[in-house]
């Protein structure tokens, strides 16, 4: 089977999500990669080095700089004439583009796969991860998005792919980029952080949330996350949100502080390697999934912990 992977990149470098997607794709067959962008030579060269990648197709034009779905989808659909599966990381970029490609190909997308069980069979989470479905695709061609935390990353070096320019046409001109507002943070991005400290509503205010969590995160080199309750209460911006409706994360260590462990939050972090919970309620559901728990007042524990690290 010939598989086309959409490369997630920022022009110069490729995102880790791409590496996990290559691993998933390689379970299906031979992997080629598609880099769409403007002036994305660095990303194309990096993609060619990924272990297991054959051809790297590069579609480059100024109109593609922001990888808008309207412009990217026709390019991917054209390349799919010679490929059997289009495999895309389930990032916001991938989730925006993949279904558009699927519809152009008249294919029902297989969303957010956790494993490859066979050439047309996959597992995927449904009901916010409360159930895992095994599904078999009857479509001749597949369009698949990958939950990247469920797959090991392919080696970023060692590959010897060949770069090939392809037709970049297809932008219908119906959409245009206006602006981007990056979240201001020098901390690691949640989806790639090795350690995450995450806070809940128990922090009581935005000031306390940051005053307590930021120093701890700095000590641990951690990303900062939040429960939906904390986001809804305005303690943290929405892009901090970990959970089914926020980000799905799986760091080496996830420290949940003042988070009770609602289903919707657990769905976003339960694949973390080690979960540490700090909560004053010893019956909080978070302790049922935590590897290490500490019962107590976060306003005492967090400063002490920060100091002792």
């Amino acid at each position, binding site marked *: 089977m010939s598989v086309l992977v959409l490369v997630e990149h920022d022009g110069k470098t490729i995102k880790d999500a791409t590496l996990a997607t290559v691993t998933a794709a390689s379970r299906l067959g031979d992997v080629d990669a598609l880099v769409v962008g403007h002036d994305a030579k660095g990303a194309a060269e990096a993609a060619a080095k990924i272990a297991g990648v054959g051809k790297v197709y590069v579609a480059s034009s100024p109109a593609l700089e922001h990888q*808008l*779905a*309207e412009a990217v*989808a026709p390019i991917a659909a054209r390349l799919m004439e010679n490929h059997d599966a289009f495999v895309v990381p389930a*990032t*916001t*970029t991938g*989730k*925006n583009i*993949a*279904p*558009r*490609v*699927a*519809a*152009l190909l008249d*294919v*029902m*997308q297989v*969303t957010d796969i956790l494993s490859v069980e066979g050439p047309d069979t996959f597992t995927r989470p*449904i*009901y*916010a991860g*409360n*159930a*895992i*479905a*095994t*599904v*078999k*695709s*009857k479509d001749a061609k597949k369009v698949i998005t990958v939950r990247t935390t469920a797959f090991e990353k392919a080696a970023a070096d060692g590959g010897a792919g060949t770069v090939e320019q392809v037709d970049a046409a297809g932008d*219908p001109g*119906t*959409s*245009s*980029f206006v*602006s*981007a507002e990056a*979240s201001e943070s020098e901390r690691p*991005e949640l*989806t790639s952080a090795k*350690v995450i400290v995450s806070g809940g509503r128990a922090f009581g205010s935005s000031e306390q949330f940051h005053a307590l969590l930021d120093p701890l995160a700095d000590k*641990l080199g951690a990303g900062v996350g939040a429960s939906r309750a904390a986001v809804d209460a305005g303690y943290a911006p*929405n*892009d901090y949100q970990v959970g*089914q*409706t926020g980000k799905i994360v799986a760091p*080496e*260590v996830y420290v949940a502080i003042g988070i009770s462990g609602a*289903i919707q939050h657990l769905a976003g972090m339960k694949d973390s390697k080690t*979960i*540490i919970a700090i909560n004053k309620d010893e019956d909080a559901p978070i*302790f049922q999934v935590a*590897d*290490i*728990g*500490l019962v107590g007042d976060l306003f005492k524990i967090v400063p002490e912990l920060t100091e*002792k*690290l």
Partner: protein
Amino acid sequence: MKVLVAVKRVIDFNVKPRVKMDGSGVDLANVKMSMNPFDEIAVEEAIRLKEKGVVTEIVAVSIGVAKAQETLRTALAMGADRAILVQTEEEVEPLAVAKILAKIAGEEQPQLIILGKQAIDDDNNATGQMLAALLGWPQGTFASKVEVSDGATVTREVDGGLETVKLKLPAVVTTDLRLNEPRYASLPNIMKAKSKPLATKSPGDYGVDVARRLETLKVVEPAKRQAGIKVGSVDELVERLKGLGIAK
């Protein structure tokens, strides 16, 4: 300007889904069902556009079982003007839903179609994008802000922060959580909604084949994590963190 809003009847978001013993799916018998939360946000956004005078008519559409009428009545009670139920007992996948909605869009000629970004049952996050592709329209997905004048300016929730795009109309918008807080329907409006027009159609009326492309082989509960140990002090926790190699 006319707006089409798509709504889905799903398990209520406060209910914990239970996997059936035979592994055939999730047990929905005698379970509270509600409008998909992201679709409520879509309905609310359409109503706010109408209140601003941008939109003149809101048509709510649902594709599903006969009881999805209740979901449409909720949309009507919130403020939609009329409703279309495309009734089928099949579980319709996003691709087929998008095909039906595209046909309805052909008949109704809306300038904007607003949908929830994903349904909380099958979690596909695909219908809006598929619909936009089938219609050849631009898409503003995961919207946290929508402004409509000669086009639609949509601020999108993306992994690294926010992205704003400008879309020519007609366009498809899918909603994220922060876009708005949906209103509750008042009792008088619930009563009034009962007399608002609701047309019932079938997928056949639109010539759409709703046969599934994905066959569900089995549905199981996720592997459970084992509860670990509790430590008694911060010092013990620090020792554990050292053991994990994340503290020195």
